[in-house]
């Protein structure tokens, strides 16, 4: 089943690449090829927000005693890691888009700055995950850290409407509620978003598997250590 999904993801990504690099036109007025980077940048940004949303949601599910399940914590971690990768890519591809478009690799406007902060917030989250000793400890601390960090996601997304920024308004979701591009470009963008979302889901699945195995390994090592400890200590036999 997972293999089928992986294949489907690859196919979708492939089709997207073909459309993005060949079928769609360059931006008419400038002979502008760099617009093709948007078919990467927009989906990776969307996936990053999605990933951190999933982390926040699963963290919440873990925190609430009634819904607590160790799996939620592992999913939260997996999704956050994938999210950090996608955020990093968003910044890099955005930068590559920015140089030919605005003439600069970076601008300190609201959207870029809040996205950079997002990157570091979750980098800290990942560091926190690695230092906690027990699963319970990790679950609680990381859940709270994830919920705090998630506050930056809506701020980052809405920053283009709140502040006068260099970064452009949303292509689909914007205050004028008008779709700003059409034709093959719009189709390719939607396709790209679908493709990257599938990729996200697949990566999280695989990363979750890995996390599960790591948990199993740690539990086993702990049990081993305890057994060794018990064996090392002389056992008192109670007098009959």
């Amino acid at each position, binding site marked *: 089943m997972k293999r089928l999904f992986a294949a489907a993801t690859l196919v979708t990504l492939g089709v997207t690449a073909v459309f993005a690099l060949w079928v769609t036109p360059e931006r008419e007025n400038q002979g502008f090829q760099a617009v093709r980077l948007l078919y990467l940048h927009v989906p990776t940004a969307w996936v990053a927000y999605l990933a951190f949303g999933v982390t926040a949601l699963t963290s919440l599910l873990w925190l609430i005693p009634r819904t607590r399940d160790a799996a939620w914590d592992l999913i939260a971690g997996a999704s956050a890691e994938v999210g950090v990768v996608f955020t990093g890519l968003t910044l890099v591809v955005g930068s590559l888009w920015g140089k*030919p478009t605005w003439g600069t690799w970076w601008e300190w406007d609201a959207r870029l700055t809040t996205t950079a902060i997002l990157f570091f917030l979750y980098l800290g989250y990942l560091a926190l995950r690695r230092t906690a000793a027990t699963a319970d400890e990790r679950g609680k601390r990381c859940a709270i850290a994830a919920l705090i960090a998630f506050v930056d996601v809506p701020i980052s997304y809405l920053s283009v409407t709140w502040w006068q920024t260099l970064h452009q308004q949303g292509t689909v979701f914007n205050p004028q509620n008008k779709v700003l591009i059409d034709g093959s470009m719009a189709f390719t963008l939607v396709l790209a978003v679908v493709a990257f979302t599938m990729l996200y889901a697949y990566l999280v699945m695989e990363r979750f598997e890995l996390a599960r195995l790591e948990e199993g390994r740690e539990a086993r090592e702990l049990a081993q250590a305890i057994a060794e400890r018990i064996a090392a200590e002389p056992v008192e036999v109670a007098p009959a």
Partner: protein
Amino acid sequence: MSTNWNYVIVGYTVVAVTMVSYFVWIKGRTRKLRRSLRDEDNG
């Protein structure tokens, strides 16, 4: 403006390489862990 293509090529390459590397890393560690856990069970 054919020099724009450079940015596009770099961008797509970076994304592709990152995704593939990440995937390979996950699979590699998974395989290693599965093997060592299996060895412990058997050995």
